[in-house]
């Protein structure tokens, strides 16, 4: 386990280092758009409560960009609320992260409602609720049975998506996942290693859509767009909030049979942790999440993946630009 995590980190590092070189020249300058501030100005600032300093929290996250950014945002936001914060932001997949919460290695990490229902609570792809709130309630109940608390979810959803290049979509006339029928046996699908046993991934494509692919190749999740643009993959499993989708002109196939459940992110922690941290925790998290819309999350991911900024810096930008911290 340890070794595999180390290897993944090394690979991710090496890949990202090389990514800079590979993408440097063909990336057009990106206008620095700002996460839109709510004009109502309702949210206001995170208020510091010095009493919270006695509560020490370790914020964790899984091992991809969005999770790291989320982890940083929670960490810095909660720090602004006065908590003593540690970070452990590269925990591998969902099973590793959940085990870390249960063992107390970390206090909390953001998990997606859909992932939780499918991967932790044995839901079948066809029994998943389509409504985000319903999905959250079910996930929350599941976590509760394990002695865990799931705070209210983010506005954004980050589900898996089936992506193809524009050329492939045009050539084969693909708009929906169902359109792959009769064509998938000639196509190569790339996804994460876990994809093989996930109902919102390869397994769902096989069972819900009855698709058979020429070959499924598991790769490190960091390569999900590179495999498409390099032409190695015909079809790749990506995330809704991936910034590359627009930049690389990828086409997301519509999930016409409703295979992908809502994937809003919810902060998961032990009940003791939530109790110890008090009411400020939930209040701060709610404030932090208010502006985490699909667009903003895409933008934040873009700043890390495409503009090569540090997740910590991007998180700080988010908190500052939305007026949650800083200012007067």
């Amino acid at each position, binding site marked *: 386990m340890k070794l595999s995590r180390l290897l993944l980190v090394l690979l991710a590092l*090496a890949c990202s280092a*090389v990514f800079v070189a590979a993408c440097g020249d063909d990336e057009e300058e990106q206008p620095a758009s700002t996460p839109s501030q709510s004009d109502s100005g309702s949210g206001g600032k995170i208020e510091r409560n010095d009493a919270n300093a006695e509560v020490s929290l370790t914020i964790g996250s899984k091992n991809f960009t969005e999770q790291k950014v989320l982890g940083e945002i929670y960490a810095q936001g909660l720090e602004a609320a006065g908590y003593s914060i540690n970070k452990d932001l590269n925990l591998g997949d969902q099973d590793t992260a959940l085990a870390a919460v249960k063992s107390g290695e970390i206090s909390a990490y953001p998990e997606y409602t859909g992932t939780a229902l499918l991967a932790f609570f044995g839901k079948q792809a066809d029994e998943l609720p389509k409504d985000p709130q319903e999905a959250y309630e079910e996930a929350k109940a599941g976590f509760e049975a394990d002695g865990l608390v799931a705070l209210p979810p983010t506005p954004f959803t980050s589900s898996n998506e089936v992506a193809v290049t524009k050329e492939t979509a045009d050539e084969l006339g693909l708009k929906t996942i169902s359109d792959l029928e009769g064509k998938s046996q000639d196509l190569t699908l790339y996804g994460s290693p*876990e994809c093989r046993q996930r109902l919102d991934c390869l397994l769902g494509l096989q069972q819900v859509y009855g698709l058979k692919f020429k070959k499924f190749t598991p790769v490190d999740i960091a390569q999900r767009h590179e495999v498409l643009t390099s032409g190695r993959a015909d079809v790749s499993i990506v995330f809704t909030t991936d910034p590359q989708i627009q930049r690389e002109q990828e086409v997301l196939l519509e999930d016409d049979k409703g295979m992908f459940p809502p994937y809003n992110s919810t902060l998961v922690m032990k009940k003791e942790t939530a109790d110890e941290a008090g009411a400020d925790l939930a209040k701060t998290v709610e404030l932090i999440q208010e502006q985490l819309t699909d667009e903003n999350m895409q933008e934040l991911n873009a700043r890390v993946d495409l503009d090569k900024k540090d997740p910590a810096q991007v998180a700080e930008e988010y908190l500052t630009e939305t007026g949650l911290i800083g200012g007067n």
Partner: protein
Amino acid sequence: MSTTLAFLGDFGDAFDYIFHSRESQAGGARVGGSELLPLLWTHLKVTGAAMGIAIAIALPIGLALGHTGRGAFATISVSNVGRAVPSIALIAFFVAFFPRTPEFWNVTVALALLAIPPILTNAFVGVRQVSRDAVDAARGMGMSGTQIVRSVELPLALPLIFGGIKTSTVNVIATATIAPLVGVLTLGDPIISGTVHGRAGQIGASIVVALLAVLAELALSAVQRAVTPTGVKLEKGASARASRLGTLKRRIQTVP
């Protein structure tokens, strides 16, 4: 909890994983047992291709350098510095810079680079340690440079050359386990994707890889015996026995 028992328990489960296929950790996919065969096949293909490339490059260079004794320091230094580059970085490098090349070849080339230094160094040392008397005698008999290399230096250097090939093969077999990170499904897949194959898969695949390394070493020793001329076997006597036991060759290999 008795750790010894838990240890054995994991091992028992690992053997079960090796011999019988089972549901993946979260269900939905079959892992272990006969499902390991395609992984084993890919592992062998990657190893074979990488070793083929490495031998094709390193052996002629090593023999030539040993024969002439020129440029050896530079070449062997460069090749040894190459050993310091982590294989995983090499693989990531190749995949990133040659994204259109099939992953299989990117991984193979990276592994070949890993395999070159021991072969090159051993071939060089092997030829250099051939008795000068034997080489002079051959020259006195009117043999050309190529003939000397083929009929005198190469046979006498065989034990060391095979030492290098064996070292490289074992290295490559072990390192090929990181190939699944870039989509080449070797026996490393159960080790890397623990959430799919479970702990039994991680240990089971490790056992299979270790066995593979031992088998490769034995097979190469058999090949070595088969290709060593009888005359050399008789003549070398004590030192040949020592090198066949693996003591001599491994010690010399570290001396460039």
